[in-house]
């Protein structure tokens, strides 16, 4: 509202200035700006603003969030993201645009991990144990999965593995199962998708695919 009245004031000035034959260009430009806000952005501008948003976001940014912020429809945003992704790939950027956990994220390319670690002076996170990985695999494929169900498949108690996975926020409790003993059910978290670089759970290869490997 204040902006609009300011524009109106400028317009009035413009008229008066023009009538006196004063500065022509500057007031005209301000008028253009006022009308431009309602005009559609070019696809290039949309691509740029989306890049800026994904850059500042802490977490993968969903198409819906982007669409809401820049007030464009999701199809436009989706197309712009595709274009941005292509730009990154084409110029062999050190960065890549990836779809993770239902959103988009800018990250470094794997090739440069040595240099990055050298610079950051960090080590990779402690690896999950075999037991934790197995437990996580069962939960990922059978979710929501209970402790007895995990025991059935793994043939061994998984209490400490479950604790590790909960501590690392890879799994979350999903309420109790209405069966004998009302065991707690577990499922994978958003952090799981992020840490394993997955778009969503459907990106996991089907468990039946592993059958071929077995036999």
């Amino acid at each position, binding site marked *: 509202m204040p902006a609009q009245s300011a524009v109106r004031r400028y317009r009035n000035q413009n008229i008066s200035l023009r009538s006196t034959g004063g500065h022509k260009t500057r007031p005209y430009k301000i008028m253009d700006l006022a009308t431009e806000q309602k005009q559609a952005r070019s696809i290039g501008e949309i691509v740029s603003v989306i890049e800026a948003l994904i850059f500042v976001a802490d977490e993968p940014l969903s198409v819906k969030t982007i669409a809401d912020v820049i007030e464009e429809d999701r199809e436009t945003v989706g197309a712009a993201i595709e274009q941005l992704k292509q730009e990154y790939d084409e110029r062999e950027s050190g960065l890549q645009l990836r779809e993770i956990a239902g959103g988009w994220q800018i990250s470094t390319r*794997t090739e440069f991990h040595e240099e990055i670690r050298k610079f950051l002076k960090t080590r990779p996170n402690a690896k999950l144990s075999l037991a934790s990985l*197995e437990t996580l695999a069962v939960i990922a494929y059978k979710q929501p999965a209970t402790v007895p169900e995990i025991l059935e498949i793994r043939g061994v108690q998984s209490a400490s593995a479950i604790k590790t996975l909960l501590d690392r926020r890879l799994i979350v409790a999903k309420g109790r199962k209405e069966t004998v003993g009302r065991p707690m059910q577990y499922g994978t978290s958003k952090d799981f998708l992020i840490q394993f670089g997955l778009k969503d759970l459907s990106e996991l*290869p089907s468990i039946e695919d592993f059958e071929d490997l077995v036999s």
Partner: protein
Amino acid sequence: MEEQLEQLNFDFHKEQAKIVEGADEQLQIKLGEFAGPLDLLLFLIKQEQANIFDIPIARITDEYLNYIRLMKTLDIAVAADFLVMAATLIEIKSRMLLPRDPSEEELEIEDPRQELVDRLLEYEKFKSAAQMLYERTTVEQAVFTRGKQESDENNAEVDASVFDLLTVFQKIMLRRAEEIQLEIEREEISLSDMIASLKKRIFDVKELSLLKFFEEMHSKHELVIAFIAVLEIVRTESVKLVQNKTFGDIILRKI
């Protein structure tokens, strides 16, 4: 750097446990981890190069029990789940040794190993899935994101305003005040000490206002002690109480 590289090259298969025949013909074990009894069983079957659909149950059971004994001699706590599997194996083995009941229908006899085979196959699928997850994390650890931007909300270290600090400071001061009060109580003087100090004072200054003397006391308890000390000193020493006018100040005076 060297170590980091090695960690990144960590191989899912290499990390697994192996039983190797030592030079002195004693079983030696390369300690690693078997994720569970099914994992151990799969390993033994592979080592024996046996067909999973036709497990040589007697031989595998022996191997399995050997391994459990080895764990015991090495003082590794054998998880109950490993013992359950040992019992299952022995049960299957004995069922296979029993002659079949000739009266039973020949057709519907299930292989006693079937259930175990199903479990092994199911388990192996998830073991492969675990490996897939392992490979994914290895790749993901080589990818970096910009990370969280520090802000007041997510920085736990300075997630406090000046007022929070002030509140905490006030609480500390309050606690300190309470502690000081406690200390005074603990330092309370005994009757004999009070008498001794009062006596010394009277002998030094010759004359002492009772009002002044009582005002120096910090608590009711001290006042009582002081009052008894005055009475005591008047009774035992050459000290008397003098009052110059009605309701006036009482003075302790050495004679």
